[in-house]
């Protein structure tokens, strides 16, 4: 540590200022341990956060590219519950990360007021990178929480902002981890061979970490039931409940919100790159071979719920119209507009025997809110792409 001259006494005065004394009190009352120990607590929390943000980044990218597939990628239709799992992990894991991030910020909070604020150009850069890291991490968790709670006080479109911010946060995290790697290695060294004796984990630090883990677990436990049905009864704080909704299934967009009214003259059009165009009535569809599947609606918001669907296989309808094996299908809704009016079905999904043009849900005809007269249901596919109120299937080349 380089001591700087302080001819005016200003630095000494600042050291004695109220914030500085508060921070000193914080250090004494919270950590009750030496700086080195606080560093190690922060390092442990950092390891957990690094894992958590990596998982969130990867599962988030999976969700993004499932909804906006780049030309080179084709998503598999199996395992059936893959998206349900990745998005459940993304959202519930994100919620459980909230206590973790707050704990980490708490342990490093005194550093915010360090004196002198900047020691060198490198130190200035390091500190400047804390803003994208802290601001970005808080931004992701706060906007994510608000989004699943259907609360939109912000001016931006959540998916776009959450997506691009993820790169900023994760980039800042990579740089931060590179800078702090020595501390993480220090944890491992003392955690293994003979480490426990060399540098015991103090009761205060162990208690703090256990409390944080408990808070993360409590948040997870009271929300995970919205996607992991066996724990549905514990989902006291989840924005959704599997089994709650028309026909015992939650709804994301109601018919009223989509501007849909039932049409007795409804017909399903199959057009585009087909051998013969089709126009099928509901009776025509009901006359085709009927199949029953058990598939979840897995929402991008993290909730999911399984249901029993019955209807016609999409591939049976497409084969009746005469299509090549490699075509792609655009499923168009009766909705007049909206971001999710249409969705694309790639070959792995439309060839899958589980992919249905569903007519029945849980033993009854689809309710209007669930897409009457006909909706798409496919395995391993985000809920927003399970297009409801289907009007047309447009076959085209990818």
């Amino acid at each position, binding site marked *: 540590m380089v001591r700087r001259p302080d001819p005016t006494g200003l630095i000494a005065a600042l050291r004695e200022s109220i914030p500085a004394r508060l921070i000193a009190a*914080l250090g004494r009352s919270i950590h009750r341990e030496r700086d080195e120990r606080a560093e190690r607590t922060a390092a442990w929390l950092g390891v957990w956060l690094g894992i958590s943000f990596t998982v969130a980044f990867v599962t988030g990218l999976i969700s993004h590219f499932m909804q906006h597939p780049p030309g080179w990628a084709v998503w598999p239709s199996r395992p059936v519950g893959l998206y349900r799992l990745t998005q459940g992990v993304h959202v519930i894991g994100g919620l459980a990360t909230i206590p973790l991030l707050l704990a980490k910020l708490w342990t490093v909070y005194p550093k915010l007021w360090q004196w002198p604020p900047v020691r060198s150009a490198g130190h200035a850069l390091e500190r400047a990178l804390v803003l994208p890291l802290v601001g970005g991490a808080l931004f992701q968790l706060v906007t994510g929480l*608000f989004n699943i709670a*259907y609360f939109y006080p912000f001016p931006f479109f959540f998916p776009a902002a959450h997506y691009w911010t993820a790169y900023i946060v994760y980039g800042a995290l990579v740089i931060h981890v590179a800078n702090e790697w020595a501390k993480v290695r220090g944890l491992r060294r003392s955690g293994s061979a003979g480490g426990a004796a060399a540098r015991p984990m103090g009761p205060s630090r162990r208690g703090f970490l256990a409390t944080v883990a408990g808070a993360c677990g409590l948040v997870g436990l009271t929300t995970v039931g919205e996607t992991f049905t066996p724990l549905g009864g514990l989902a006291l704080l989840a924005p959704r409940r599997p089994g709650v909704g028309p026909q015992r299934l939650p709804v994301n967009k109601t018919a009223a919100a989509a501007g849909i009214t039932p049409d007795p003259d409804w017909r399903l059009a199959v057009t585009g790159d087909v051998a013969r165009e089709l126009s099928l009535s509901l009776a025509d569809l009901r006359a085709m071979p009927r199949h029953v599947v058990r598939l979840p609606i897995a929402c991008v918001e993290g909730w999911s719920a399984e249901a029993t669907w019955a209807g016609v296989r999409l591939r049976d309808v497409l084969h009746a119209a005469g299509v090549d094996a490699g075509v792609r299908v655009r499923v168009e809704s009766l909705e007049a507009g909206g971001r999710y009016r249409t969705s694309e079905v790639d070959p792995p999904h439309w060839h899958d025997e589980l992919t249905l043009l569903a007519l029945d849900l849980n033993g009854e005809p689809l309710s209007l809110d669930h897409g009457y007269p006909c909706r798409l249901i496919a395995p391993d596919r985000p809920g927003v792409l399970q297009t409801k109120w289907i009007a047309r299937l447009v076959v085209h080349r990818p």
Partner: protein
Amino acid sequence: MRGRLIAYGFGATLIGVGGIGLLRDAAETRPAGWLVWFAGAALTHDLLLAPLVLGAALLTGRLPEPYRRPVRVSLVLAACVSAVALPMVLGLGNRAGDPSRLPRAYGADLAIILALIGLAGALAVAVSAVRVRRGRSRRPR
């Protein structure tokens, strides 16, 4: 050192991708509004939330040692659960004629969880009190 430079390059690239994406997608990301929320999140934490927790830490710091920890643990758990539940408890979300959105009475749910945390905390304090008393009576006079 080489590994570190690669990490710096990778991290800076990711930040660049995010920044450029935000600006190119400005119609949806609203960069000015985004910046308010981005910096605002950090400022709200640093200037409001952390000092509040600091105040709670100083207050609970006056408690004698065997009781301090259970009280603090209970407060941390209660605060974290409340933070996550807050938008739902306050009913800030939009239900748009859809009863399957936010179907529960979240205030009551949160109250149940907080009561359980309080109960567990009180139990822990009671156990500590009994231990302290026993310790005193066993001490040779």
